[in-house]
């Protein structure tokens, strides 16, 4: 069928052409003005989905960034504080070495002890560092002051009240980052290796497994000396004997000397004393009453009875044959097994549960050693301090480990932040690719729409004016 154009068809066509071309022009202008290709989801549903999914990925990254950037101040603060602690420990170590110098007098040692006490206080301050309301070295028990000074058995001890967990944040779908160092790991790591005894009494480690932490005192008590006596020689048997086990007592009348075990042969003064102190090769003592001595040679075997106690109250007698005698301290829960075969002398022996004491207790022990309140001999004191120094060095390496871990966390935060920022920029670029208008394309479209509209207007105005009336005169 041949189309029969009518006036209203023509007008309608012109009108429609103008409307649609104006629409295109407006749309192009909108894109140019906003700089975006997708202004509403229906502009490009698929593109919208892509853009939103990209934005979601950015959001995801942002949440990781927000975790890392918010944890960084505390990680850095903790690391800085540990560095401070490390410096303090180096200073303390120098002081300890100085204190171990055998030629120091009591005053000098007291001075060093006072200085060490200062370091102790500062270290405790570091270990209890707070960031806002949170203790940095308390594991996840961040509202609890982690290192608390308490007194156990009258001895000053620091106890850890935090836990061994670490604070962690998510920095990837499956990746967590540890942002705290547990105070236990840094200042009070428990890594029991062996039980060590001082060398005073000749006590040795037994074969049984021990349980304990820090330091304890083993009381080796002298319970009395006995022996077959004669030639008018008697035992004083006061409280001051310290000789344990069997020891020969030899009086050489010709030389006028008395000798205990392999100890020095001491000259017997005249008149014969009623209470002569004889010392054996271990420094153990026996007291002999020579007031009734006949002046003849005499030799016998003296036997010193002993009992042991870990808590200082309940004593267990020994036979000098036990290879693994169990001793228990009910207050501290410490359990030790000792070998008594080598016991030679009564003493208060230091027990070191190696690998279990925290830096504070070690320092405190050194301070106590320096003050020598137990009045031990100088070599003994140095021996004790040497043992403590080993513990001290161990705790220092723990601290350095913690410091290294925090340092690497800080680095990791930094690198993951950078990586996440790079990714974010990349993703933003992709969003822009999908969502934003390409200005060249938009400009071209704008021009094209403009030209088409002008063409439509021009042709429309021409065609509308055509009518037969123009020619009917």
């Amino acid at each position: 069928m041949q189309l029969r154009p009518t006036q209203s068809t023509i007008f309608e066509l012109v009108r429609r052409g103008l409307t649609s071309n104006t629409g295109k022009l407006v749309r192009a202008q909108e894109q140019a003005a906003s700089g975006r290709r997708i202004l509403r989801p229906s502009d490009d549903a698929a593109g919208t989905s892509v853009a939103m999914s990209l934005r979601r990925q950015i959001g995801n990254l942002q949440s990781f960034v927000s975790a890392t950037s918010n944890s960084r101040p505390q990680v850095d603060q903790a690391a800085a504080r540990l560095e401070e602690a490390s410096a303090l420990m180096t200073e303390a170590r120098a002081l300890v070495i100085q204190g171990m110098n055998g030629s120091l007098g009591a005053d000098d040692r007291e001075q060093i002890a006072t200085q060490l006490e200062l370091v102790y206080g500062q270290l405790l301050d570091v270990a209890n560092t707070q960031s806002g309301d949170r203790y940095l070295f308390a594991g996840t028990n961040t509202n609890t002051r982690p290192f608390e000074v308490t007194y156990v058995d009258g001895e000053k001890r620091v106890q850890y009240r935090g836990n061994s967990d670490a604070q962690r944040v998510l920095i990837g779908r499956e990746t967590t980052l540890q942002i705290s160092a547990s105070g236990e790991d840094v200042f009070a790591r428990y890594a029991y290796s062996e039980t060590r005894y001082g060398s005073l009494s000749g006590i040795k480690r037994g074969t049984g497994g021990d349980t304990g932490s820090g330091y304890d005192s083993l009381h080796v008590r002298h319970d009395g000396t006995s022996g077959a006596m004669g030639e008018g020689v008697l035992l004083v048997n006061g409280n001051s004997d310290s000789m344990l086990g069997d020891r020969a007592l030899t009086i050489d009348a010709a030389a006028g000397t008395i000798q205990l075990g392999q100890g020095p042969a001491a000259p017997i003064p005249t008149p014969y004393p009623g209470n002569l102190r004889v010392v054996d090769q271990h420094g153990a003592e026996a007291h002999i009453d020579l007031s009734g001595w006949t002046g003849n040679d005499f030799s016998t075997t003296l036997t010193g009875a002993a009992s042991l106690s870990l808590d200082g109250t309940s004593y267990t007698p020994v036979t000098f044959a036990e290879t693994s005698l169990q001793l228990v301290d009910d207050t501290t829960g410490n359990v030790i097994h000792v070998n008594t075969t080598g016991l030679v002398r009564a003493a208060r022996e230091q027990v070191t549960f190696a690998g279990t004491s925290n830096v504070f207790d070690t320092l405190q022990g050194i301070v106590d050693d320096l003050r020598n309140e137990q009045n031990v001999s100088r070599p003994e004191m140095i021996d004790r301090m040497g043992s403590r120094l080993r513990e001290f060095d161990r705790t220092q390496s723990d601290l350095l480990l913690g410091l290294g871990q925090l340092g690497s966390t800080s680095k990791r935060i930094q690198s993951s932040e950078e990586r996440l920022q790079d990714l974010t920029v990349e993703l933003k670029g992709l969003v822009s690719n999908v969502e934003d208008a390409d200005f060249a394309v938009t400009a071209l479209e704008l021009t094209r729409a403009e030209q088409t509209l002008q063409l439509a207007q021009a042709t429309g105005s021409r065609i509308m004016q055509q009518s037969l009336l123009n020619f009917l005169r």
Partner: protein
Amino acid sequence: MANLGSEIGLRALLSSRTALETIGHNVSNANTPGFSRQRIDLGTARPQNLRGLQLGSGVNVDSVSRTVDELLNGRIVKQTASLSKLSSQLTEMTSVEALLNEPSGEGLGSLLDQMFSAFSALSANTEDVVYRTGAVQSAISITNRLHQIIDEADQLQRDAQSKASFIATDINIKAELILKLNQEIGKVEANGTRANDLRDQREQAVRELAMLVDVTVNEDSNGVVRVQVDGQLLVGAKNVHAMTVEAGDKGVLNLRLAGATRNVKPKGGEIAGIVAFAGGFVNDLRGELDTYAQSLVLEFNRVHSTGVGLTGGFKSLAGDSSVPDLDGDGDRRDSLLATAGLPFPVTAGELFVTIVDDASGDLRQVRVEVNPTRDSIGTFLDKLDAIPDLSASLDGFGRVSIVSESGKTFHFGRPLDLAPDQDGTLGGGRANVVMPFDAPLSVTPGGTLQLQGATSAFTVTFNAGSFTNIAAATAEEIAAVINEDAGTIANSLRAVVVGDRVAIQTSGEGSGESFSVLGGTAMASLGLSVGSFTGQDVAVRVALSGEYTGAVNSQWTFTPNGDGIVGTTPGLTLSVRDETGALITTLEVGETYSSGTPLLIAEGVSVSFTGGEVRASEGDVFTTNVIADSDTSDILVALGLNGLFSGTDASTVQVLGSIQRDPARLAASATGAVGDSGALRDLLALQNEDVEALSGSFGEFYSTLVGGIGFQISSTKSAAEVEQFLVESLEERRQSIAGVNVDEELVNMIAYEQAYNAAAQFIQVVNQLEDELLRLI
């Protein structure tokens, strides 16, 4: 002949004049909508038989008719209806697009991202109240945004209703007009005349009506049309069945014609667009958002309910919603969990309740089994209530209320019990013997167990009445019988439950404590044999450390393989088994073991022992729970306990009031330690986790939703464009048939003008002929 001539001339004059008048009518209606051009049908007048000849008697106007294609008009009516449905739908839909405000990055999607970001920031600073407030606020922004969208969707639906009412009024006016035109056309055409202009008007009215609602039009032989909507009569022969709009549920709009018994569901026309928009599009959107909100509540609460806030456990906790009384018998406790009408489904699983002693910090973990098809609200509460130091009930509003004894708090977190052997059933200081079999045990009814305590010998009797089923006695029941015996009390003995086993032990610790099993008829069924048991001074202390990283809950059982002293006896080992009895690991605790050293068991959990004797011969054992998810049954979510959100759909979802008031209650910790962020990390995992109801993550679901809306709009838009094109081309065809071409009319006008002039000339000639004749006379 003369008469005939003038007659012919007159007819010619009249015809041309009529034609010119019709042309005038056409030209003047060139722009009248719906006007069909008219033309006159000319015919030769009846010939006359004169003089044996049949002579033509001129021209006659037979009729004035419209040029119209009825079939085409019918199609236009149909397509107009489809087009106007699409375009009205489109107009409404774009307002939804504006409402979602995407993909500008300021809509719900970015709010969700912001919330996760705030949670993430909090996970690095769990103790900080400012971060907490920020996290809670970010959650509130999401619920606010959801409310806002729902409010606006509500408004859109209300607007749609009033629009539909206006359209219905229009429809009724048009229907009345058609009825009136029907009657007029009937009157005019009764005498055989075609009522051209009235028909045009009626057709126009029908077309306008079709824009509002799609109609079927049938014309009867009398020229009267009947108009039907969805098979029901709108305009009948005599009257109009007016349309009314009525709002149903969820934005559904019901249309009804007066006198009809069912609703009409037009497929086209503006009103169909509005109905589809309000009851379909907006409703679907609301449905999707409801699903979204529901999943938000479910998934976030699942994690949050098992978390612990900054201030630690609860002293009392109430559900945020009431338990419904579905059967209406006034007892809310009697419905099974599965059918109690709880907002979220309960599945068969387990719930771990942790009770913390405020002073010592000691934990006790209790496992509560939940079976929704066997447990009612009441039996579940009874199970909680049976836990020492805890009481559970329904409060006056029908909400679950759990209260702990003073000095205790409780939570549903998943801490590792660091001191799992509180009763000392593995090398503890007490004299102790553990029955070697896992309950349930078949205890001899009326069987006895003779024991010798510190002060006396006595006999415990196991009567069937003390058991639900003595042939399958539980560890708790056996322990209760022993504990209630007067002899047990008098001798300071006690029975404790270790996993599924029962231990008999002294209350005091140390080597001075002892008791004996003397005999009895139930001895064999309990797995005991005659023997005496002594406590020890050096007790084994068990400590766990680490964080359980396993994916499933488990109960680990520790048993020594032989008797010996930890750290001393050569070759002493301990076996760790899971609840199925499968061996997890064997720990070397003999001479090579340094006391107190943590040994890794599995999944991040380590154990350490101190020196002391363990005795396999006395059944030494202890158990501990390792928890990955402390509520696998979702009972906490269903009862609204310790949630983050409350509500069940997009319009009711809220951040719990108590958390809004006190952000410290936001549960960040999974273990109860304030620096732990386990619960937050689990919440953050939701950012990428697929949620079952959403078949994707929260973000994916939302962008699918937005993308889907965009797609619907753009496809509606292109459908409307196609329809528009179709209607325009149909309209063009109608114009080409029925439209007025002024040029054409002008040509016709000149033709008829000339014919008129010729006819006048003819009359003049005839007149002259007559005059000539008369002059002859």
